[in-house]
């Protein structure tokens, strides 16, 4: 019987010929990433809980400080210092203030065919390059760091056949939010969302990252695309070669299949407080906002900055709105500098911050207050996600967010 891309990656990592959903295998991990959200706990467990503290292969590890940068209080600084000192001591690749962890991983490390554990739920982003990335807790991360292996329950795969092309003014973020709205927050719980079909072939690596990144919001273990020429070209530009390029077998078995016509997708918004509460954006026009955020590992790359700059060029941010623009990485920031996008945002009155997670994760930067409303290109809109428990977060595309920052209320670009 045939296997899906995800099953093939797990089989290779487990050193077996064949795996099927429901099996549990011990697998070798190709890479492990941890950020300043939990690494201080991992380091404490490493020193205090292990009878034999050791690291299987430091070259597989990447530590990235991206959540509270620059630090907002002494305890944050202490947690980051613990992480920094541990990385220095064990010669682990260490990035601080260079961008959101998943953007840095995609720009510098991820290769097709790899099995990657990240101590962050959006590790599923790496499927855009045909890798199997999944989020774990810091105990799992510690086990992986010490042994280089972990246990995996082989997930079922769900096929999403994308047909046609997105209309103008409609973006991959609208597509993924629409999918999540239809299948629900646990629609693909424990399963892999595999994207294919003619419509998938024409998507850029950035578009694919937007889709895979949000797959966890539907409960998925990961989202994944086949590593085709577009993916390999992205890799080549960065001097990297794939570990292995897998295709799903024609007779691979899927738990379910969906076919989605991209041409009928329209701009949508996820309403507070759930990512799967998705409605057409036009239904919410007019809602007053206090803050708009253009950034995050989902929607903070050069493509989104171009969309935002294109809309706001020559216009001003509304006085009643704080418009936070946060490039996803230093590489994106430098490119935006060259293209004059940062100047456009500065001229419009936006607040341009250093590459990091910013208000998407609701701590340290751009925190919103009591009863305030944020429209965001971040990944989540849970209750109090961006600050005060009574505050509201709407999720929209870079175009919707920027248009709303100009008028001061939810507006379609």
């Amino acid at each position, binding site marked *: 019987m045939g296997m899906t891309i995800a099953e093939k990656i797990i089989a290779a990592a487990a050193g077996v010929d064949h795996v099927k959903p429901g099996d549990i295998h011990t697998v070798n991990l190709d890479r492990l990433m941890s950020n300043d959200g939990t690494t201080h706990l991992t380091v404490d467990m490493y020193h205090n809980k292990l009878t034999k503290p050791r690291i299987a292969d430091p070259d597989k590890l990447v530590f990235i400080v991206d959540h509270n940068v620059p630090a907002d209080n002494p305890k944050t600084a202490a947690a980051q210092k613990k992480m920094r000192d541990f990385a220095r001591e064990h010669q682990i690749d*260490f990035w601080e203030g260079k961008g959101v962890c998943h953007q840095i991983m995609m720009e510098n490390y991820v290769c097709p065919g790899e099995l990657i554990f990240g101590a962050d739920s959006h590790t599923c982003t790496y499927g855009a390059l045909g890798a199997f990335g999944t989020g774990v807790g810091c105990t799992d991360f510690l086990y992986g760091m010490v042994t280089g292996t972990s246990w995996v329950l082989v997930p079922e795969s769900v096929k999403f056949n994308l047909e046609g092309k997105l209309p103008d003014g409609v973006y991959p973020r609208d597509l993924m939010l629409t999918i999540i709205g239809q299948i629900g927050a646990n629609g693909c719980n424990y399963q892999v969302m595999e994207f294919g079909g003619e419509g998938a072939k024409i998507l850029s690596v950035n578009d694919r990252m937007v889709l895979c990144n949000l797959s966890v919001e539907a409960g998925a273990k990961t989202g994944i695309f086949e590593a085709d020429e577009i993916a390999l070209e992205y890799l080549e530009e960065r001097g990297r070669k794939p570990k292995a390029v897998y295709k799903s077998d024609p007779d691979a078995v899927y738990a379910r299949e969906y076919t989605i016509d991209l041409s009928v997708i329209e701009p949508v918004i996820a309403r507070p407080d759930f990512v799967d509460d998705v409605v057409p954006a036009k239904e919410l026009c007019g809602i007053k906002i206090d803050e708009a955020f253009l950034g995050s590992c989902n929607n903070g790359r050069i493509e989104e900055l171009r969309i935002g700059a294109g809309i706001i060029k020559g216009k001003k941010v509304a006085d009643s709105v704080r418009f936070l623009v946060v490039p996803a990485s230093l590489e994106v920031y430098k490119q935006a500098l060259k293209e004059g996008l940062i100047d456009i945002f500065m001229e419009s009155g936006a607040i*341009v911050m250093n590459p990091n997670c910013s*208000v998407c994760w609701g701590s340290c930067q751009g*925190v*919103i*207050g009591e009863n*305030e409303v944020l429209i965001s290109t971040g990944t989540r809109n849970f209750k109090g996600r961006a600050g005060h428990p009574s505050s509201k977060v709407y999720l929209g595309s870079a175009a919707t967010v920027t248009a709303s920052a100009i008028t001061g209320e939810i507006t379609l670009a």
Partner: protein
Amino acid sequence: MGSTIIEKIIRHNIGAENVKPGDIVTVKADRVMIHDIFIPFVADKFEEMGFKKLWDPDKVVLIYDHLVPASQLDDTRHFRIGDAFAAKYGMKHVHRSDGICHQLMTEAGYVKPGDVVFGTDSHTTTYGCVGAFSSGIGYTEMASILGTGTMWIKVPETIKVVIDGRLPDHVMSKDIILRLIGDLGADGATYLALEFTGSTVKEMSVASRMTIANMAVEAGAKCALFTPDEKTAEYCEIQLNDFQKSLTGDEDAGYKKVIRYKAEDFVPVMACPSQVDKIKPVSELEGILIDQVFIGSCTNGRLEDLAAAAKVLKGRKVADYVKLIITPASRKIYQEAMEQGIMEILSEAGAIITHPGCGLCCGRTGGILSDGERVVATNNRNFLGRMGTSKVEIYLASPKTAAACAVTGRIVSADNEAVLEK
């Protein structure tokens, strides 16, 4: 007998023939500045006092800079209270994310030479760089000015600081004011005005004078003053009127003390933990390991400061495991730095560039540190606990020195090419 600059400004303001130190007079405010941390307290006191309107809405400037972007749940309450106050009392000058208050007050043209200006921040002395009498006050005092437009003051005595000669090229005006604070002591100029003159001062840009005026309060000074000249006129985009041209210290004016420096004697210095007047030459501190460098603040976040840092950082990288945080002083400066390719150099070196505002300097966010960490910073205070816990060591320095430290990960002087090349 001749008059000092402060005496000339005060007598012009109150329309008197003459004033002498010790007189208690009531001056009219030409402009006042309130920033985001204190607007809730100013608003409460203003209404508690029973005032119904501002004495002159056009003379009041509200600037959000300490809490931009917000880092704690309650921060945005300050913005909402500020917006409501400005709307209720017809204020037009509100800057919500354009940069640091003390940078905007002269950069955006609110303060002119000879003006009398008060602000709810001790570094309001900064506007002396264009020859204005400007001083920091509390929020209750500000509330009473908003209602009456006036404030009582005691005419201060003046210390004259004369600096002649050419500065060595790796020395910046920050090194001058740090040295002066070290010589005077943290309370050496309490209740006094500081007047700066001499050929070195004449050669200085307004931005360099701003660094000196900004830190005058760290020696306790009530205000700092520079004679307006053609550089001032160009910066303020005005023609100097006769009164403004007259603002020089007369030769026969009564100065409490005159201090003279030869520019060639200045060397790069640092204020050591945790007093601003604990000054040591950088050469005596070389080799001390550091964890972070901060370049920014109303003291040293201007274009010439970013350019000086870029000169050191060009083609080099920030040392491993060290953070370089750069916070330009205003939106306008950020844009000018982009035009001149400075931002490209700084980002190439690996700097963390945040949005214009007070940033780390005010100790709320922007790079806070924890026990045992050391930071070299270009702002104006290194008090205990100012940038994290009381076990954080803060060294104040010029942007050029700070940039050199960022490259090597230890304290080093910018002219120490050998170390920088390694």
